[in-house]
């Protein structure tokens, strides 16, 4: 799946109250959105870097002049992806915000290419 397809899937998960995704939609949407972000970032980084942990990739991205917001969104999505017993899943509103951020991030890449 392309970053765009992943992000669209994330948006669908958030926007459609589908019985089949009950209980998992929020985390699933976060995972899709994060993957979209990671794929796009990988596209922008030199080859080989993808083997490093993503946090390191973000550091590299920062050094080569990427925008800091990517790191924020990735951190927020990562948090939402992990099932943490002491924390509630993110709300639809929060997810929409992050999806919009990723969308912006993808758009920058699309304009550049």
């Amino acid at each position: 799946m392309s970053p765009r397809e992943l992000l669209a899937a994330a948006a669908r998960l958030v926007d459609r109250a589908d019985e089949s995704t009950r209980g998992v939609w929020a985390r699933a949407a976060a995972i899709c959105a994060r993957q979209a972000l990671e794929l796009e970032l990988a596209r922008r980084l030199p080859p080989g870097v993808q083997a490093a942990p993503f946090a390191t990739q973000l550091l590299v991205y920062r050094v080569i002049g990427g925008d800091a917001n990517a790191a924020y969104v990735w951190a927020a999505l990562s948090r939402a992806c992990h099932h943490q017993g002491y924390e509630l899943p993110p709300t639809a509103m929060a997810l929409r915000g992050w999806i919009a951020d990723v969308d912006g991030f993808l758009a920058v890449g699309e304009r550049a290419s």
Partner: protein
Amino acid sequence: MADKHPDATMTPALHDLILERLAGDDGIDDTALRLVDAACRGGKVLAAQLGKLGDEVSRVAAAGPAHAPGAAAVYVERLRVAGFRGIGPARQLELRPGPGLTLIVGRNGSGKSSFAEALETLLTRDSRRWQSRPKDWRDGWRNLHVSSAAIDATFLVEGDGRVIVRRRWDDGADLNTSTLGVQRDGSDLAGLEALGWARALDTFRPFLSYSELGAVLAEPSKLHDELSSILGLGAISAAIDRLNDQYRRRDKQRKQARDELAPLVKALESMDDPRARQCRDALAGRTWALDEVEAALLGGGNDADTGELTHLRRLAQLPLPNLAQLEQAVAALRDAITARAALADTGEAQRAALAQLLEHAVAYVDGHGGDCPVCQAALPGDWAASARVRLDQARTQARAVRDAGAQVATRQRAVRQHMRQPPPALTQAEALGLGSEALAAWRAWADAPDEPAALCDHAETGALAVHETVDSLRHAARRRLDAMESTWRPLARQLAAWLKTARAVQADSEARSALQRARTWLKDAEAAIRADRFEPIAARAQQTWNLLRQDSNVELRRVALEGKATRRRVALDVDVDGKPGVAVGVMSQGELNALALSLFLPRMTLPDSPFRFVVIDDPVQAMDPHKVDGLARVLEQVAAVRQVIVLTHDTRLLEAVRRLGIEATAVEVSRRAQSVVEVRGVLDPVEHHLADARRCLHDEDALGPGLAARVVPVFCRLAVEAACSEAVRRRRLGRGDRHADVEQAIAGARGLHQLAALAVADDSGDGNRVYQYLNNKLGRDAGDAFKRIKQSVHAGGELGPLAELVADARAIATTLRRVA
């Protein structure tokens, strides 16, 4: 009267703003304009201006330096607390001066909040706010394990350098009895006022706690006060009050005169007196014709010629016939009549004819002689002589008769002389209700017969009648006058007293209306300036909210200060899923806290505030995890321009800061037995960059040698830069340099070497000292290591093993950050 506004002194900027508006407003007249200006300068200036109302005073001539200079900007460097709240033995909190984020993390009861409270107590012990704390708090402020309490803090003040503020409590003393010491370079200053902080602490209070956040939205008027005080418009309110006071004082006098007048007018209305009527008419209108009142009081006025009083006075003074003289005149006339009557018996005509005949006869005989021409008898010889004698006798007798007639006529005139037409005043008697008898008697008397004897009788009887009727008329008029005077006099005295007040009130009328105009203008100006000034704060609040809201569907649409007096409030209009609503009604507690924080952060970071530090105690409570991320980013933004000190019991904020890669310092506070508080650094910007470097180093294989060599040195360099910036700030802020200059020097350093030279030699040009210093401190290789780090961003430099580079960077950063 003392000004009741804490920030009653107007800042020059605000005063200029008002002068500008005044100059640009054609709708305000010169008198009111001067009053506005004077009111802005203070109560005394206003009083003086009112004193010379109408004088031509130049706008600028009245100006004096009435403004307090703004307080100098300040960071906090160190806080030392002993025996206060949760802190037992003395503990020190080192804070990095300059912009940046510091987190103080500790469990509830660890003593972290005690640091925040200590700093606030140190600065605002006298503040009203402590009075509102519960008694238990005020009693329980002392730490149980240590008897003596003391708080010290080191501040870096622009222009002053390090200023140490100390507060000490004697054993057993209560919270309010402490001694405060303020020192600069070892010499004492006269309290916090010497630094100009007292007012600024009230206005920009750089402290914010969770409990306040929660409470403030529940009290609309309190929030309004907190926010409006930062606008610094209290000085305008004070000026409006001054105008108001002056107006009220004058209006009170006016009302007093008006109230006193009411019973007087009532008395005037019930009084049948021309003066009373005149006064009443003069006072009936909206403006009192005080000159007419005064004229009436003085007895002049428009009654002088034709009025009732004049008529009465004239009637009271009517002349009476002089009976004695009249009697004499009548007696004389009667004598003359008698005398004439005595002569009239002899026959006047005969005598005259005889005299004529004799005259002719004598003339004939004298001329012709001879006998009698009539009887022809001879005339005796002595006839002529005897005829001449008889002729003389006849002539004498005729003259006597003529004289007697003339005498009668003369005396008749003399009598009539007394009986002229009635005096004009008498004709008014009937109109005044005093009857017409006197006038009728006088007219009848004046209408005298021509016959002398009849005249005598008429004159005598008529005079008696006139005398009697006029005399009684005179008495009646006099009585009437007396009655009037007895009611008028006391009222006139009251009116005279009132007139004095009324004159003063009238003299003040221009001042009153000018004061009213000035007040209205200034009130309008205040509203306009308030809106103008609040706009950027509202905009900042909205921005902050947008960051903080994260997963909230509440959008802050409008923030505005509204209403007055008891109805004042902060309007917070929000859209919930696109539908308008009111914030307080639709938001969760966590959202409300975030909103309150959105409103307070702009206040704490206004450029006008001298406090370049803000202390926020536990903002994270009740916040959703996603809002914690938002909070971390909001704090990061504020930390770009302010020294932000956040105390929190919640590790989520620290976690968010780490996860989001926000540059920050963090210390952990924990409390052991006996209130022994431990402070331990857990995160700082230098370490932060070094950690990033190590992470990339760790993944060197994945990145490949080329990319690793490009990335790792960047973080090494960032770490050394952070260390240098810290050192430069500590030195330069510590000696009182302007904060803006310090930041400019750091930003202006070209390259790491210049920045390091600034740190080591306080001179960006003295690069050699950096090598000397590092070689001296860390050994011969340190200079070379520095060179490698410095050149690392440029491709082609000799880097050596990256692990060594990171280790060198760590050593160099650690050394350089302590150079100052």
